[in-house]
């Protein structure tokens, strides 16, 4: 395991999977448990949360006190290697328009699932048929009924807490009990429901109850972002890849940067070539099927870089669609402090890693000036002090009476120490995460002039937002203001959201839900994959990351990546049994 070196004439696997995140991990798990021989390529090193997590470290153990670096943008203890930049692996922009694509890349076993927010939402029936509803984008070639059995299976296999609410487009699931709301969440719930915004228990893949002998129950340290030593939350590393290695059917090759999909004269995929990052030499591994799960953009990059006489436009890309329809969730944020929560009694309210409540989309777009909805994520409470702790106190401590006294902003000394104690635990934050329209003119392509340090041509991005997304962000900002106002809160960030900053709408890519670049469809001229995530032009090539998504709803995409990957993997097992591939 780990450093297996494979020469060109090595054994032929049933499947070569590129990438070990949610999609690749699930494919490895299903295929290996069906007895198929799998080679799993991962561009980063081995990572086992049991040994490698920085869970329960104290802030002073980090000389930078948990601050982010370019190696770990979400903080020094975070469970994700790399992020917005990777040394020696650039990406570029076409530079048309004001928007830049921000590309998050993880390089490690399990990919970004080691640190993700564990928000595990099913797409609803409407989410697969949006064009039929509002005329924009495209319908999926499948519907909720096609994917529901797989959502059910992954709920049971991986565990997710939540509550059954009977909402039309936020389907119920097989849920573990949710944790009770924290204090600030009770305040939010009261304020938001008071102005007609629903607030329900969040749906996170965290084990509030043990579900099997291999994984422990959550012990409420709130640090899922660091990955979990007892496997109490879902990561592809802990819950899919490491268990699949135990079957003996998976050869994992780490530090393997895929370069190209190989094919024969008939255009069938024969394997993958990769650069071993340790010796910088090129290797080839062959398989009866090739499954791309390198992330939506990396999988598109692999297709576009795999040119041959059979596929002059990139592998299985006769349609020219590979790389197009790239889209992310929209995002805008706002936060403040709640005077009622000043000078709080101290107790441990860490809870799970993330919010205990959230607001699913609740409005009818027919009455709004934008299509598609968003959900609201909430944060706040007593957090571990880390780099940036109450940064900007000079904006806060003159704005309220502290222990009954009106003070001047700024200051120093014993009085300042009193201010920090008084304010601690009174912050709340809100983040809207919405659906953008997948468009053909939002794309990634190969930059003809730039290669990475492995000599592989890199991606160039061309993405922008329209009034649809900007109006949606405006609506988010207005809603956040209303909720904060209803709580008697004072807004501390996001208050300047307006036309000048597109109402706080983040750059595309910033929300880290990349999808759509290898989309599925019934029309082979307008899609790369069929409804099984199988290439129209090559029956033994599949893609199981965010690439196949036709649209991505106002729901975080991981649970759907997992469900689609399981569905495709079972299809592969079935097709192999029938000797169709």
């Amino acid at each position, binding site marked *: 395991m780990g450093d297996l070196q494979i020469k060109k004439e090595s054994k032929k696997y049933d499947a070569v999977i590129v990438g070990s995140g949610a999609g690749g991990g699930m494919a490895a798990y299903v295929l290996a448990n069906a007895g198929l021989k799998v080679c799993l390529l991962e561009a980063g090193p081995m990572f086992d949360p049991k040994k490698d997590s920085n869970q329960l470290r104290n802030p002073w153990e980090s000389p930078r006190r*948990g*601050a982010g670096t370019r190696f770990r943008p979400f903080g020094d203890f975070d469970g994700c290697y790399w992020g917005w930049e990777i040394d020696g692996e650039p990406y570029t922009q076409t530079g048309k328009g004001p928007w830049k694509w921000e590309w998050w890349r993880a390089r490690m076993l399990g990919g970004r699932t080691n640190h993700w927010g564990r928000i595990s939402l099913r797409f609803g029936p409407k989410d697969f048929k949006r064009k039929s509803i509002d005329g924009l984008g495209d319908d999926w070639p499948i519907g909720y009924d096609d994917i529901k059995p797989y959502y059910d299976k992954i709920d049971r296999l991986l565990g997710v807490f939540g509550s059954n609410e009977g909402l039309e487009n936020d389907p119920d699931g097989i849920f573990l009990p949710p944790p*009770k709301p924290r204090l600030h969440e009770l305040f939010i719930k009261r304020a938001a429901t008071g102005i007609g915004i629903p607030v329900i228990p969040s749906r996170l893949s965290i084990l509030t109850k043990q579900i099997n002998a291999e994984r422990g129950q959550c012990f409420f340290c709130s640090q899922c972002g660091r990955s979990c030593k007892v496997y109490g939350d879902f990561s592809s590393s802990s819950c899919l890849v490491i268990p699949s290695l135990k079957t003996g059917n998976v050869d994992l090759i780490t530090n393997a940067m895929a370069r190209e999909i190989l094919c024969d004269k008939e255009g069938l995929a024969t394997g993958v070539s990769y650069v071993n990052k340790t010796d910088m030499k090129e290797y080839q591994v062959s398989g009866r099927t090739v499954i791309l799960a390198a992330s939506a953009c990396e999988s598109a990059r692999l297709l576009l870089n795999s040119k041959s006489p059979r596929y002059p436009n990139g592998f299985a890309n006769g349609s020219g669609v590979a790389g197009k329809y790239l889209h992310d969730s929209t995002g805008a944020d706002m936060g403040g402090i709640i005077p009622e929560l000043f000078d709080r009694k*101290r107790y441990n309210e860490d809870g799970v890693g993330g919010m205990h409540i959230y607001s699913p989309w609740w409005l009818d777009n027919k009455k709004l000036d934008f299509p598609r909805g968003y959900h609201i994520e909430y944060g706040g409470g007593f957090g571990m002090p880390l780099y940036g702790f*109450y940064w900007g106190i000079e904006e806060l401590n003159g704005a309220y009476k502290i222990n009954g006294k009106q003070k001047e902003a*700024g200051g120093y000394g014993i009085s300042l120490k009193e201010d920090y104690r008084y304010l601690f635990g009174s912050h709340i934050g809100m983040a809207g995460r919405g659906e953008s329209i997948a468009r053909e003119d939002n794309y990634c392509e190969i930059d003809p002039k730039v290669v990475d340090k492995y000599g592989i041509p890199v991606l160039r991005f061309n993405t922008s937002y329209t009034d649809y997304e900007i109006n949606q962000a405006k609506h988010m900002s207005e809603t956040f203001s209303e909720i904060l106002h209803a709580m008697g809160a004072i807004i501390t960030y996001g208050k300047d959201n307006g036309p000048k900053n597109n109402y706080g709408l983040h750059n595309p890519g910033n929300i880290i839900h990349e999808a759509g670049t290898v989309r599925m469809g019934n029309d082979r001229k307008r899609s790369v994959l069929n409804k099984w995530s199988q290439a129209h032009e090559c029956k033994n090539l599949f893609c199981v990351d965010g690439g196949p998504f036709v649209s991505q709803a106002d729901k975080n995409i991981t649970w759907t990546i997992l469900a689609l990957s399981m569905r495709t993997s079972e299809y592969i097992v079935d097709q192999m049994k029938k000797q169709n591939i």
Partner: protein
Amino acid sequence: MDRRESIKSIIIGGLTISALAEACNAPDKKGAATDHPNVLARRTFDFNRMPEELEHFNRIKDLIFFNEAEMATITILADIIIPRDNVSGSATDAQVPEFFQFIVNDMPEHQAPLRDGIKWLDDQCMNRYKRPFKDCRGYEQMEIVDLIAWPDRVKDKPKLAPGVAFFNLMRNLTATAFYTTEIGVKDIGYIGNTPNQWNGVPDDVLAHYKLAYSERELKECAHYS
């Protein structure tokens, strides 16, 4: 006393506010501290690091950005911002000055604002008191600090803006450094980061805010005994 300890006592020792006036009156306290080590960076990591992270850390850990005079200034200011009180210790008790020496090499964007700010402060003190800040008497230091520590007082005095910006940065970095140490975490009262079972907001807290869980929450939410 090993070398590290002895240097620590020279740099940190006695630089609380009350001791400062005295120290400032003793003009020549130079000596062994000329090669001030980056104390925090000398700690070894025992948690998960990529090779690239270790390489970066090893590259910066021995760098010394602030000279002795600058460190003395930072130390005085840090202890003015976070002095000892009846709850917890001072900035120097929590090795806040050492954090400054480390963080400016890890986050070079802080270098110029801090160095230029110290220079600004010294220039002001030279004009007023004919001495750099660190050599001023305690009451002189407090006089100049009071000019820049209260942003709302001097909004119409653009000449003081660089000093206000510098002191804001000093305040924020000092607080970040202090409240992320064992002393600071205990002071602020963060009592998490330990395995536990979440059964909801304690009853007395709910009562204080006149809140209650709904029947459905009590019935359906996770409960541990």
